[in-house]
């Protein structure tokens, strides 16, 4: 893997300093009233999860559609650069950038909730898991969106459904289908960390990340296997 696409994504992100500052400040400003204002843990954690997941999904969908419209994405594909590598490099670049941009907000949330060591150690993989999933969801949304506005709408709707399935908005009855789905969705660990962090307690048992990680790996493999079709759909004109 040449990492050319990964490197250029980072280079562009670092060059756009105003956007970078905006992407760091906005989540901090959004979570600050909740984290510092004593919002109920359950409501606060749901809000955090929605914010972080939408941040990752939009951050993947919108640039993909913009680059499809302005042309460089098509040029990369026509250069013969392997599509699976393009997807993987792009997703990893997007995830790591999102991670660093959301880190200050995450620190504020967990710091204000006086989270224990177990929460702090769990937050890194949980956040990475959620953001990589969100970036992949963003890729698929871009493939099925005909415009940027449609992409934003689809990303929001799909993310809210997945967050709902992850138990962010309700707790499914134990043993139900909903509970089983919740166990495997990669947004669940992030919500659990937020909940524990906001309550200032250790994460509850049963939030083992393995099922969610396995699902994410399958999702990543499917996305790379179908990378050619997905990127063709995104970059072809007319879309």
């Amino acid at each position: 893997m040449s990492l050319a696409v990964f490197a250029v994504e980072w280079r562009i992100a670092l060059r756009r300093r105003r956007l970078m500052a905006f992407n760091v400040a906005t989540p901090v400003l959004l979570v600050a009233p909740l984290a510092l204002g004593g919002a109920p843990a359950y409501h606060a954690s749901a809000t955090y999860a929605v914010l972080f997941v939408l941040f990752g999904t939009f951050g993947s969908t919108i640039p993909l559609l913009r680059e499809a419209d302005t042309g460089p994405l098509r040029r990369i594909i026509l250069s013969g650069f392997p599509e699976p590598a393009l997807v993987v490099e792009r997703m990893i670049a997007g995830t790591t950038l999102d991670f660093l941009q959301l880190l200050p907000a995450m620190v504020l949330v967990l710091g204000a909730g006086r989270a224990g060591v177990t929460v702090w150690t769990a937050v890194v993989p949980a956040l990475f898991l959620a953001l990589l999933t969100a970036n992949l969801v963003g890729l698929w949304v871009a493939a099925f969106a005909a415009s940027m506005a449609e992409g934003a709408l689809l990303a929001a709707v799909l993310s809210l459904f997945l967050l709902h399935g992850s138990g962010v908005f309700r707790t499914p009855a134990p043993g139900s289908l909903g509970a089983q789905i919740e166990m495997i969705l990669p947004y669940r660990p992030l919500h659990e960390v937020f909940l524990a962090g906001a309550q200032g307690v250790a994460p509850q048992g049963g939030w083992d990340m393995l099922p969610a990680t396995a699902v994410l790996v399958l999702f990543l493999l499917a996305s790379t296997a179908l990378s050619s079709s997905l990127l063709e759909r995104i970059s072809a004109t007319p879309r």
Partner: protein
Amino acid sequence: MDAGTGRLGPLILAEGMGYRYRSGRTGLGPVSFSVGPGEIVTAIGPNGSGKSTLLRLLATDLRPTVGSLSLLNERVRGSVRRLRPRIGYAPDSPRHFAHLTARESVRFFAGLRRSRDGRGGACVSELFAAFGLEEVGDVPVSELSFGMRRKLLLVETLAVRPPLLLLDEPTVGLDPAGTRALEEAVRERAAAGGAAMIATNDTRAASRWAHRILFLHRGLIAIDAPLAELLHRLEGKTTIEIEIDGTLRPDYDRERTRSTWELETVPGAESVRRAVSSDGRGEAIVVQSTRGSAPLPELLTRLLTEGISITRVRVREPELGDLFHGVTGEPPELSADLPSPERP
């Protein structure tokens, strides 16, 4: 033979190739032609004639909906990832990451191909100098003018020395130095055994560098002939344009013109027609001459005798652009000399 072209044989071979858009509109074809090593072929034709569609097909940006296509001795079907690094395609509009500098952009786009192909790429600084981009190497692409971005796109395309060059309207926005640099680079590629297909309506540039002309009209190949042969066909077709002060009286229609002034009876004057003057405000009389500018004195005498005030006279030798008139039928001076488009 260049290392990148593989064994000898046509680098482009299209057989009954066509493309139909999803709407059902035919974008191209069916067309059949081949381009061999060392050839520079220029596709010309009116807007919408299928030039860009042809180049997109050759760049594997589109897939033929009918017929077959072979590039660099490989049939285009299934995955084309292996082929793509060896095709240098510059689309009709520059497409870049706006926040990279010019040098970073070249490094990135040229690097993508180089990393797959392992060849070439040592000529970036020479190309920067030739295209006059040295001073803007560290300037973000977003701050470059259209012409500079166009040059940058060409440098990115040429930097890896691809065996097959596909350039869509490459001279649009280029200054003379840029056009010259492009011309040299294309010739150098052809001399190394590569091939170039250039879509353009810059017939002067095409006349300078093309070995062969593909004239497209309504998605079909109307003419596929060596440049020298086409220019030979056009020989002896001098155009004399006489612009007049104001407009002719309404009754001076074509028949009337012919009968009143009998301009067509002037020796060497083959056809006479009326046109809009170069400034768009008056009228002009356009005479097709088979004897160069020889009929001019007699033509002027007859017009002046009629009391018509002449503001400008221009004698134009035949050029490739005259093919447009011949093929598209407006005006019809050359249509008798040229074949009809091939039919499916």
